[in-house]
């Protein structure tokens, strides 16, 4: 499905360097996306999930070898199928303007269309797992989601690797259309191997009175960038993005979020919390842009990091660009450490040091976990975070 125009664009553009502002804190030296072959067959066993035992309406598994869909019992009006390269909405939100989206548009083979017809509500979530399995290989993935007018459903997307230290490169492009009065819950959990370079662009457009509730979980990958853009395109549109991440070793996570208020009376609320151990690094860049017609915008963004070692590091770069004059925009960023006196307080009640620290770190994430509406997802992410807190920090 080669997209020739995108392939040319990819070839023209250099790999970004730290001289470019969006990449200032994420150094890609030593990484050449063009050097990764694109295998056509998966190797070995399926990757483990951090979201076990979900009761789902339909599911799909994606690997180098293709896409397997299990969708036997879906109600009428729900399309959960292989993405057609001629779909009219394809590339509408994620095109090929930069190096990595161009690479995806040029080379993607496996894609999923999730389209829920007007007024259809799904009780159980839809689930797709993307797993890379070939050492040294690339995996390109494309997801197109259309929540038609007044539909309501949940889509869970999970990225995994066949083994925890599999070297590789993954590149994802996700387009989410949330039409009038629809409600979409979108959960995207990234638990790739710590040797996978991961680049993803997720872009949603939210129309009049529609609601998007997004959860981003970040546990894996080596380095890369995850871009999250929400366009509040119709009056009354709201979006909420909740992020929780945990990195250790020499992992480097980069979240680049963009809240684009186009229509009046729109609301966006982004909250990201992360804990970093050992030499892990996190970059969070948040931009709220309010276009001149987007009066009565209410926008919020926050990023809070907890450092669990002296060598962990986090950079938070909040940003505001406001062209309208009647808006409410707030943001906050904090950097903290586990406080010795708090640890002592808990130990003085009989908890071991490790238990005390675990409780404090778990507590740190509680308010973002509380924002997750789906109980099984909330619990699974809580457990995934907790399992990353070691016995001794």
């Amino acid at each position, binding site marked *: 499905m080669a997209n020739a125009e995108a392939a040319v664009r990819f070839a023209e553009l250099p790999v970004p360097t730290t001289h470019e502002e969006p990449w200032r804190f994420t150094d890609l030296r030593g990484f050449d996306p063009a050097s990764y072959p694109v295998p056509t067959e998966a190797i070995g066993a399926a990757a483990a999930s951090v979201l076990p035992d979900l009761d789902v309406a339909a599911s799909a598994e994606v690997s180098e070898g293709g896409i397997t869909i299990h969708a036997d019992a879906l109600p009428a009006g729900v399309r959960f199928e292989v993405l057609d390269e001629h779909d009219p909405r394809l590339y509408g939100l994620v095109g090929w303007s930069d190096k990595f989206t161009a690479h995806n548009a040029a080379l993607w083979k496996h894609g999923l269309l999730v389209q829920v017809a007007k007024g259809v509500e799904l009780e159980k979530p839809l689930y797709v797992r993307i797993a890379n399995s070939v050492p040294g290989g690339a995996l390109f993935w494309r997801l197109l989601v259309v929540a038609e007018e007044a539909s309501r459903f949940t889509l869970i997307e999970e990225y995994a690797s066949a083994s925890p230290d599999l070297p590789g490169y993954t590149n994802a492009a996700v387009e989410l259309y949330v039409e009038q009065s629809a409600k979409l819950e979108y959960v995207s959990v990234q638990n790739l191997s710590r040797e996978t370079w991961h680049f993803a662009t997720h872009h949603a457009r939210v129309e009049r009175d529609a609601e998007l509730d997004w959860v981003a979980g970040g546990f894996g990958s080596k380095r890369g960038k995850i871009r999250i853009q929400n366009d509040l395109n119709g009056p009354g549109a709201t979006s909420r993005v909740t992020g929780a991440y945990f990195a250790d070793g020499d992992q480097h996570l980069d979240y680049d979020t963009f809240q684009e208020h186009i229509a009046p009376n729109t609301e966006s609320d982004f909250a990201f919390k992360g804990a970093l151990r050992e030499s892990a690094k996190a970059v969070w860049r948040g931009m709220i842009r309010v276009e001149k017609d987007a009066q009565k915008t209410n926008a919020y963004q926050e990023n809070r990091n907890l450092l669990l070692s002296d060598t962990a590091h986090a950079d938070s770069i909040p940003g505001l660009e406001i062209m309208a004059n009647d808006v409410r925009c707030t943001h906050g960023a904090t950097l903290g450490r586990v406080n010795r006196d*708090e640890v002592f307080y*808990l130990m*003085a*009640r*009989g*908890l*071991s040091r490790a238990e005390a620290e675990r*409780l404090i770190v*778990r507590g740190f994430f*509680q308010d973002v976990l509380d924002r997750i509406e789906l109980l099984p997802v909330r619990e699974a992410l809580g457990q995934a975070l907790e399992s990353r807190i070691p016995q001794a920090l």
Partner: protein
Amino acid sequence: MALLELKDLHVSLEDGTEIVKGVNLKVDSNEVHAIMGPNGSGKSTLSYAIAGHPAYQITQGQILLDGEDITETEADERAQKGLFLAFQYPHAIPGVTVTSFLRSAINAVRKAKNGAVDDPIPVPEFRTELFAQMERLSVSRELASRYLNDGFSGGEKKRVEILQMAMLKPRIAVLDETDSGLDIDALRIVAGGVQELIGPNMGALVITHYQRILNYIKPDFVHVFVGGKIVEEGGPELAKKLEESGYKEWEGVPA
């Protein structure tokens, strides 16, 4: 053998400054000892050192619990053996509810008593006990599901300290300025809650600036603590005397 014994205890801060300069004290079950002293005398340092705060270094002497030397043990082990410190300024732990914290603490103590094998308290038993103790200490039920000390008033924090004590059932309780920040009604409830626990299973060391709390927790012994040392000892009448004449008599006396 005393329940808690301090033998020639010296405590320094991390910068080497000596704050506690040789304290000898024995506390038994069924006894209440009051340590009374002015601000800056080292009372809180003494209480933190007894509980095992790593920032307070014991440079000389010993702490014995039931005759066992616990000077070198960490705070969790001391708590598991039955030592409890009610903090003057309890810390907030956002995201951790009072209930889940208490259950974790009780289970940690039970595990230690069970030879490092998990022995969790059955949930119905825990809930029954928790609600009974909360009612006794006039702690509103709503507090159980709030995050520990997060946004609590000064009075709520102190009540929740005593609630923790009542749930953990220590053998020796050290109360650091528990009366500070409490109005008379709250003080009556909190101190009454402590007094009820004192008996064959528990002794207490009440550290205070003012005599007020001793109207509710009756001391058997009073130790006057000035400049990091016990400078006078006596019975309950000594507390009354201090209330009238203050600590002037001992201040400025070279240690």
